[in-house]
């Protein structure tokens, strides 16, 4: 049995090692973040890595927090939230999803889109099409007030009709202008989604 003082020393030694390790994890953070937050960030990165998730987006989130002057707990909370969203996105999108698709899906989830909806879209489009931009546009629509269901329907119909990324960029710009000019967000999305032509054969449903 280890005596209490010795055990205390061991705890201190381990904590110091953990803090030193955390600081050494990424020189971009260095000592810009308080030690407990560095440890928490390191743990979140390790956990993400163990789940097969890309860790760079989490690091970028921490760096963004530092750039705007956020405090440690707020940065940790933001990184944790992103890691949860990326894990859900990874689970729903499946093995074939790219890192960029997972990042974009996490952003859409942050805006309020359920992961399961993103998973359905990925299953529908499969390997044929990257959904990085569709998910990015969907996040934008929802953050501009388009109801989730209307946004999902609009993006699904566009992707299903074979819309290219250029079409989706045009769609996003048109909807945002319509909303800025006073159009109800749902109506703007639904109307603009109808305007784009079906350029290729519709994708098969499961």
């Amino acid at each position, binding site marked *: 049995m280890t005596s209490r003082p010795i055990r205390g020393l061991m705890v201190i030694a381990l904590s110091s090692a953990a803090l030193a390790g955390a600081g050494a994890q990424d020189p971009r953070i260095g000592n810009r973040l308080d030690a407990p937050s560095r440890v928490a960030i390191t743990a979140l990165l390790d956990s993400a890595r*163990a789940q*097969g998730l*890309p*860790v*760079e*987006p989490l690091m970028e989130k921490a760096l963004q927090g530092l750039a705007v002057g956020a405090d440690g707990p707020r940065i940790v909370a933001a990184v944790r939230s992103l890691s949860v969203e990326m894990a859900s996105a990874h*689970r*729903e999108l*499946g*093995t*074939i999803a*790219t*890192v*960029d698709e997972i990042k974009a899906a996490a952003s859409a989830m942050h805006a309020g889109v359920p992961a399961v909806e993103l*998973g359905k879209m*990925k*299953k*529908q489009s*499969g*390997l044929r099409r*990257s959904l990085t931009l569709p998910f990015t546009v969907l996040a934008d629509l929802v953050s501009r007030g388009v109801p989730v269901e209307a946004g999902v329907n609009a993006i699904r119909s566009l992707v299903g009709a074979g819309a290219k990324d250029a079409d989706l960029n045009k769609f996003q710009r048109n909807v945002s202008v319509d909303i800025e000019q006073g159009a109800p967000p749902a109506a703007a999305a639904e109307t603009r989604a109808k305007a784009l032509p079906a350029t290729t054969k519709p994708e*098969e449903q*499961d």
Partner: protein
Amino acid sequence: MESSDAALVTRVLHGDVNAYGALVSRYRDRYARYAVHMLGNREDAEEALQDAFTRAYRSLARCEEPERFGAWLFRILLNRCRTSGARRVRRGQTFVHDEGALMKASQEHPAEQTMWREEIERAIGELSADQREAFLLKYVEDLGYDEMAEITGVGVSALKMRVMRACDRLRTLLREVHSG
């Protein structure tokens, strides 16, 4: 900045062999799971995965969609597993789980957890290779039937039939285990 698959493939094709290490690191665990379940043991799975990575490297110039390197590699692994021969279960080293999850499970219901895992392992091993492949792709890798068809080269209706039969078979096997 974490490089995209396409960026890494391009670097490899231009002679940066280290970039391939990043691809190996990115996909090894994700695809090890499929290989372990498909082949039934870690050693064969690692060998299949090594071969798949090596074959992919050798054929990298023929990867038509570098941004989908992962899916292309998965097809190579799937073919490698198909030609690997019969599934060989080596007890005690078949499932290599996340240690944290294992610890949690064993703390909660150690005996039940082990028994349950062995039941599943045996039942999966009893499936035909076609059924096992379809079941793993559908439920474990969580692919849609269209993706499965694209990866396996098998028609959607045939895949649905395989998955259904796999479920039927698992139902029977696991019920037998339970009642036995």
